[in-house]
């Protein structure tokens, strides 16, 4: 059974005078352990698609089933709980809590999950060491480079032990070296832990590293290619 099943997904925004169809009847499935890039030009619906899978936005039509659970059936705090325990998020602008250290940022997700203090501190330390930031545990985001901040964001996304990680343009704000390092890290985590990564990008380097590339244009899937 597919980990994520997207069926006839349509999203229409009514915020302007003319309704905008951001997603148009998208149907796609993702298996456990995939390393998939969602690509397409700006405005093609990549971020909307990730937001839908992540339960951050509601479809106008169609449905999303994650591990047998219909996201539409989850409301309010149940949906928040679901995101907390099942999905890891990595954002383009890192979006770490600026007043927390790297260690505390990673620990915070586990605090929300109710993990005991000792355990969450140990796990946060291990994750930061795994992303190569063992010597930056107590640095705040402002004291880290963009690449380092995005590594903390990846560690934070993995801290909740999610079923899959959604990354929205994770390399967009990084230089080449940092982007390569981050891709190495995500690839390594994908292979080592069979962690599912779905990321939106229009970065050619990222697309080249993805094992599956789903191309969106004008809100519709125009290509879905898997390489070995």
């Amino acid at each position, binding site marked *: 059974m597919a980990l994520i099943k997207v069926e006839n997904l349509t999203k229409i925004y009514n915020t302007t005078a003319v309704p905008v169809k951001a997603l148009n009847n998208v149907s796609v499935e993702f298996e456990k352990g995939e390393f998939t890039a969602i690509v397409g030009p700006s405005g093609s619906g990549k971020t909307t698609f990730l*937001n839908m899978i*992540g339960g*951050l*936005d509601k479809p106008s039509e169609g449905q999303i089933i994650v591990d047998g659970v219909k996201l539409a059936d989850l409301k309010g*705090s149940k949906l*928040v*709980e679901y*995101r*907390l*325990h099942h999905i890891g*998020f990595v*954002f383009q602008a890192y*979006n770490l*809590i*600026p*007043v*927390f250290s790297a260690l*505390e940022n990673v*620990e*915070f*997700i586990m*605090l*929300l*999950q109710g993990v005991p203090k000792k355990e969450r501190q140990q796990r946060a330390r291990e994750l930061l060491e795994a992303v190569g930031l063992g010597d930056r545990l107590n640095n705040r985001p402002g004291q880290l480079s963009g690449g380092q901040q995005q590594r903390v964001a990846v560690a*934070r996304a993995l801290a*909740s032990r999610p079923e899959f990680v959604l990354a929205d343009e994770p390399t967009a704000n990084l230089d080449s070296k940092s982007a390569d390092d981050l891709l190495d890290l995500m690839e390594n985590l994908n292979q080592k832990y069979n962690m599912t990564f779905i990321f939106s990008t229009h970065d050619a380097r990222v697309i080249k590293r993805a094992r599956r590339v789903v191309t969106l244009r004008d809100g519709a899937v125009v290509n879905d290619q898997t390489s070995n």
Partner: protein
Amino acid sequence: MYLNLSWRNIWRNKKRTLIALASVFFAVITAVNMRSMQLGSYAYMIHSTARFYNGYLQIQNKQYWEKRSLENSILQDSLDFSRLKQVHHVLGLAPRLEAFTLLSFGNTTRVGQIIGIEPEQENKVTNLKTRLIAGEYLRQDDYAALVSKGLAQMLGLSLGDSLVLYGQAYHGQIAASLLPVKGIIEYPIRELNNSMVYIPLQAAQDIFLMPGRLTSVAIMIDENRHLKDVKEKVARLIPPHYRVIDWPTMLPELHQSIQFDNISGMLMLAILYVVIAFGVFGTIVMMISERVREFGILIAVGMKKTRLLIVTFGEIVFISLIGALTGILGALPIVYYFASHPIRFTGEAARSFDALGIEPVFNFSTDPTIFLNQALVVFLIALATFAYPIFFIKKLEPDKALRS
């Protein structure tokens, strides 16, 4: 960790937080001092007035205050004076037998008030000895009178002269006596100065044919803020057909003027606190509006809105309470200084105080409830301003916040 996050969040913008703290700090200092001076002055005025004659409380027969008749007297032996004296905050008890009679000397007759007292007990309650301007103070076994200066002048009385007393005694009998003048006392209030005659209680009970009976027991306490407490305790120690009346019942004009003045003070405070509320509110609005995206991220990664509200509430409480507590600490030395060095005032107001025999000073109160109330008010302001984050975060949609 949530409180840790709140604490660190408020220091993201140090200048803004310090400005918000300063506004609360100075407002609380001002409010505490205003309130301390106002309540301190009331307490001083009430204390001085109670010392004059009435005391803070009086034990009476239930009908006495309305009828002022000797028929509505109480039995001295029905009161346990030793237990009454032991009630916390009670400074003294003055048993009295009061009656209005005709007073004559030579060809002149006036109406006066005879007050039978236990001289030493009375002095503890009203400092009567300090009003003596000629002659000697009464002893318990004397058969003599202290006459107020105005009355003595009207009757042409001097020390050693005999005052004729003629009136109605208990059960409609006749009270008549001849009392030598042992001392002259002076009151700054004309009504009192023209009417008061003090005699020993035993003598009064003999004259009015009321052995072992009293019309009232005046009670002096240390501070007005203990009035309710003492009144309740005293009420439990007296027979059920007696009652305890307090100074607001005995002196309604004073009570009303204090209430009126207090309302104007409260209005000033309310204005001050509205200013504080807007200061804190402005800070909160800015703190929220610049973190919309961050809130969106936190909700997206799985933070419940209620937890986000806890963090935001922590920020408001930190700013409000730090401001309030430092304000209270800042106000303490000022209040304590002026409590021991009252501000003396002059002019027309001072003259009206002098006329009442009260020293014209602004006393400061060190009542801890003044300080606690300010902290409480600031906390309530924090609660009120919290309505904005509740409204804002409740409506926040993570996908829109992420796009902001």
